[in-house]
């Protein structure tokens, strides 16, 4: 018996329409889009259905290559149950070369693949022919791809497929988002219109919090939070199987070890799962989870997605939820059967997170869910795509521009940017055209092609590796693999030092050829945080809900047990300072031995606060010479100076004015330094960095270069290069959330300043003060800075 939304999808499909189905996980989305093409095929078979597998009919795009195999099996199971001769196979970076070759000679009826593998297929001349029987493309978990470069890559590939097959239907599957309309348009492109189908099936979400017994002793700051290990262990004991979600990898390592410490008998019964752990180990953990053989898995977002983990009976979230959609996704991992409710137990690592849980519950009730904004015409990806097309059947300029503009992200692509991209891949850009030695893509009789077989080979290799940073393989001396870690992170560990990885305390022996040799550590002391960053900021939607909670508390309205548990702390905050209303900006000023502290609470998320703190520091430095220390968190920022600057100078509305923001922000932040980091990704996508891979030909080493160096060279000789501009823009958008910052600054101008002089750090201020990561604003020269650092070294020696 089909559900109403499934019927709606089937009808729309029959009418030749495309669309987007959004529904919570585990409500039967897959059936809604998989059954229609099967039924259509069946309807065309007369009088009896054929016994031979049909040619390639459905292309199924999935964001994670680890999901492709599972998805293929699940789809195959459905078609086999209907007794249809359809074949379903996966094709990803993990698929063996021989299978790939066989597939290219004869594709299965349905091919399950990733955006990268699809793009790679477009680089072969025979693909157009092989795809001619295609009727349907399904993009699974579209919300995961939407706001990413891989999503944009999917858009470009779909634009090409639609050009080849005008009647192609595109169907997306998505979790609920704040901007589903945009998600639909982005999927379908500018030329077609589709239908948005909502599963009216209300899934019940329950957010429950494990409340610390003694709130008086519960910490006000930090993020690892081991206080509740015993309660968590008891919670795990109550259910058959549990997923324990954390926010960052170091937290995963910490909790895995902490649980084993309180329950040593769980050795072998609980697992650890995050993106750095070896694929085979992860697959093993997933397999045991599926079979119900494992008690609990401590994991990061690496297990946010998954086809079918029905045996998971319970989900825990360690630390703040950070976003509404994220918590929903995680909660959805339990109660996977249609009709069942999803429950998530939240485990705070510090007091304020209790407020976030109360807030997220309100947001879920209101369905105030975050939006994901598609990228705007990234040129790195466009140049990659054009080279891909040049490798395949070649492309003509005017037709391809039209085609590219049908992709939503490129609908406003300007003539200049297009021409710049063409010049970049044919002549190497402005600065190289003079030499005439650069020929990547060559035009012949109006068709652009790649003629060098070396360039073809390198390009194909780099399509698959665009999103990964070079990483170091972690192995035991006998060669047993544990996983891989980003090079920069392991750089902090010295041989002989211990670190936690893959649930074990390891000693680093040596690093050579991108491999770190380790052994089980002898002593028990270790470095926990070999990973830094990666902490997502509190989303706007959730930040808003958190503010509301504080305002309610200010009016003594504590409507849930989380807020009631917070009563003592909130009373303290109100007594010494205030709980701000929605139209107030709370600022606290405290004097300590370290100097004068200013704590400002815009509630705009970590990234925006970083930008604001830098902006304030920059504007102050323009008025008078001053050395400042900063720290930030999701609620506010903190500036400390050893001199009292007085009320006159600390004119907060002026310091936080949106005027001249763009220019001053560039001056305030070392934007060039930040853009350098971002440029590495842009350069990799645009094919400027050839990363190499195990067993790469030796000649490839001679064209390896660091992103930093490349950035410097481009800045120097080709500063007008649009890829540089793109890197800078991406930094402003991603690392600083510039748009969000602008909105916040505008908002602040209309707010009432609530300035409080406090004698001690308040519950709001304390975590900011304790935040260890501090940045100093310095305007000294290279020589002065180096000499000062050298003096410090000498003094401490």
């Amino acid at each position, binding site marked *: 018996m089909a559900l109403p939304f499934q019927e709606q999808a089937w009808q729309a499909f029959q009418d030749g329409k495309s669309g987007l189905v959004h529904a919570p996980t585990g409500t039967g989305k897959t059936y809604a889009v998989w059954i229609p093409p099967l039924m259509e095929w069946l309807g065309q078979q007369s009088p009896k259905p054929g016994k031979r597998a049909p040619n390639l009919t459905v292309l199924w795009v999935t964001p994670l290559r680890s999901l492709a195999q599972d998805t293929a099996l699940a789809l195959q199971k459905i078609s086999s149950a209907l007794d249809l001769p359809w074949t379903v196979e996966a094709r990803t970076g993990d698929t063996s070369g021989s299978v790939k070759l066989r597939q290219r000679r004869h594709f299965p009826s349905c091919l399950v693949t990733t955006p990268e593998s699809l793009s790679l297929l477009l680089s072969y001349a025979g693909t157009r022919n092989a795809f001619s029987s295609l009727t349907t493309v399904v993009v699974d978990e579209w919300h995961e791809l939407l706001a990413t470069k891989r999503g944009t890559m999917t858009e470009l590939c779909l634009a090409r497929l639609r050009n080849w097959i005008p009647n192609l239907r595109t169907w997306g599957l998505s979790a609920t988002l704040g901007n589903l309309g945009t998600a639909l348009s982005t999927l379908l492109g500018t030329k077609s219109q589709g239908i948005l189908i909502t599963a009216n099936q209300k899934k019940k979400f329950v957010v429950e919090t494990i409340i610390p017994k003694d709130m008086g002793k519960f910490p006000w700051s930090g993020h690892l939070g081991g206080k509740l290990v015993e309660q968590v262990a008891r919670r795990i004991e109550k259910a058959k199987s549990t997923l324990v979600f954390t926010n960052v990898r170091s937290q995963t390592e910490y909790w895995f070890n902490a649980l084993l410490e309180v329950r040593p008998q769980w050795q072998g019964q609980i697992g650890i799962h995050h993106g750095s752990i070896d694929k085979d180990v992860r697959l093993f953990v997933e397999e045991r989870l599926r079979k119900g053989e494992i008690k609990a898995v401590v994991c990061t977002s690496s297990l946010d997605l998954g086809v079918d983990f029905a045996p998971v009976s319970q989900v825990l979230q360690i630390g703040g939820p950070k976003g509404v959609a994220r918590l929903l996704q995680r909660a959805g991992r339990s109660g996977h059967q249609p009709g069942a409710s999803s429950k998530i137990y939240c485990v705070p690592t510090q007091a304020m997170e209790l407020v976030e849980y109360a807030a997220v519950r309100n947001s879920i009730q209101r369905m105030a869910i975050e939006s994901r904004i598609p990228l705007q015409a990234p040129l790195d990806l466009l140049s990659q795509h054009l080279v891909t097309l040049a490798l395949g059947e070649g492309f003509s300029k005017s037709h391809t521009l039209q085609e590219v503009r049908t992709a939503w992200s490129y609908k406003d692509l300007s003539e200049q940017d297009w021409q710049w991209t063409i010049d970049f891949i044919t002549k190497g850009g402005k*600065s190289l055209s003079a*030499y005439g030695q650069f020929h990547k893509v060559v035009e012949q009789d109006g068709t652009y092609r790649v003629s060098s077989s070396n360039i073809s080979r390198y390009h194909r290799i780099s399509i698959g590796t665009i999103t990964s940073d070079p990483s170091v393989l972690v192995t035991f001396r006998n060669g047993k693999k544990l996983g891989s870690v980003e090079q920069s992170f392991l750089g902090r560990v010295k041989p002989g030092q211990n670190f936690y990885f893959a649930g074990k305390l390891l000693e680093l022996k040596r690093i050579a050829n991108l491999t770190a040799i380790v052994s089980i550590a002898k002593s028990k002391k270790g470095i926990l945080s070999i990973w830094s960053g990666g902490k997502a900021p509190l989303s706007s939607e959730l930040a808003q809900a958190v503010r509301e909670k504080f305002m309610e508390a200010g009016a003594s309205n504590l409507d849930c047990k989380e807020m009631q548990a917070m009563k003592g702390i909130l009373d303290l905050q109100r007594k010494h300072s205030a709980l701000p209303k929605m139209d107030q900006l709370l600022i606290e000023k405290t004097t300590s031995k370290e100097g004068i502290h200013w704590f400002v609470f815009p509630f705009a998320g970590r990234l925006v606060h970083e930008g604001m703190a830098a902006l304030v520091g920059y504007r102050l430095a323009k008025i008078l010479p001053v050395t400042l220390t900063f720290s930030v968190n999701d609620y506010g920022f903190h500036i400390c100076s050893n001199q009292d600057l007085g009320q006159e100078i600390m004119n907060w509305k002026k310091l936080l004015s949106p005027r001249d923001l763009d220019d001053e922000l560039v001056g305030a932040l070392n934007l060039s330094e930040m853009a350098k980091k971002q440029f590495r990704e842009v350069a990799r996508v645009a094919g400027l960095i*050839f990363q190499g891979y195990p067993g790469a030909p030796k000649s490839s080493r001679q064209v390896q270069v660091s992103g930093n160096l490349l950035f410097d*060279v481009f800045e120097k*000789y080709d500063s007008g290069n649009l890829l540089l501009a793109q890197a800078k823009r991406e930094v402003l958008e991603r690392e600083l959330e510039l748009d969000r910052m602008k909105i916040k600054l505008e908002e602040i101008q209309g707010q009432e300043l609530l300035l409080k002089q406090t004698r001690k750090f308040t519950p709001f201020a304390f975590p900011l003060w304790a935040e260890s990561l501090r*940045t*100093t604003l310095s305007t000294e020269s290279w020589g002065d*800075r180096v000499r000062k650092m050298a003096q410090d070294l000498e003094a401490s020696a």
Partner: protein
Amino acid sequence: MLPILWNQHEFFLCPEKALYWPDRKMVFLADTHFGKAASFWKMGIPVPGNSTEEDCSRMARLLCKLKAESLVFLGDFLHAKAARTDTIRDTILLWRKNFPRLQLHLVRGNHDLHAGDPWPELQIQCHPDPWGLESFDCRHIPASSAIHPYLAGHLHPSYRISGKGQKPIISPCFVVSPEKIILPAFGSFTGTLKVTKSSHEAIYVTNGAEVIRIP
């Protein structure tokens, strides 16, 4: 320029990432990697600019300033076979013509073995690694146990210095100990390798304008 005493000789550490030996009016440069950008172009990677041209004028300015009579390349003169283009040759030849009486030596490095010796018209005397010069050797690859003290390149060393609350600074550096001096890479389109300091070594960082000793 920073004077140091090494093996009873006075040397100058130049911010141009070069070493100068005033007794012999001799300049040492390591890892020029000429034609590196051109090797990238061949693989379809559009690295902009002409680092070879710029590095040649940097060499010329340095030689004029020091009034040097000979120049020793400590390996990796050319980046790769793909760097053997007419443009690269002409650029370096033009520089050579400005210093007709300059004595040129090259200790072959790992890249030279692949790329081949420089064009004969440049008149560079090529030596296998190591090449004995008075009381010390000239090498490309640093030796772990050498009989004689030596000068070498190959590592492209850089040093990371950090202070309290400050962003760390990474700069190219010289690594100096009684048994060796390792030079930073001269080529402007070259990467670096972060080195750590052992107790018997001294590190001298440079940013192109000055040289500072790290204690």
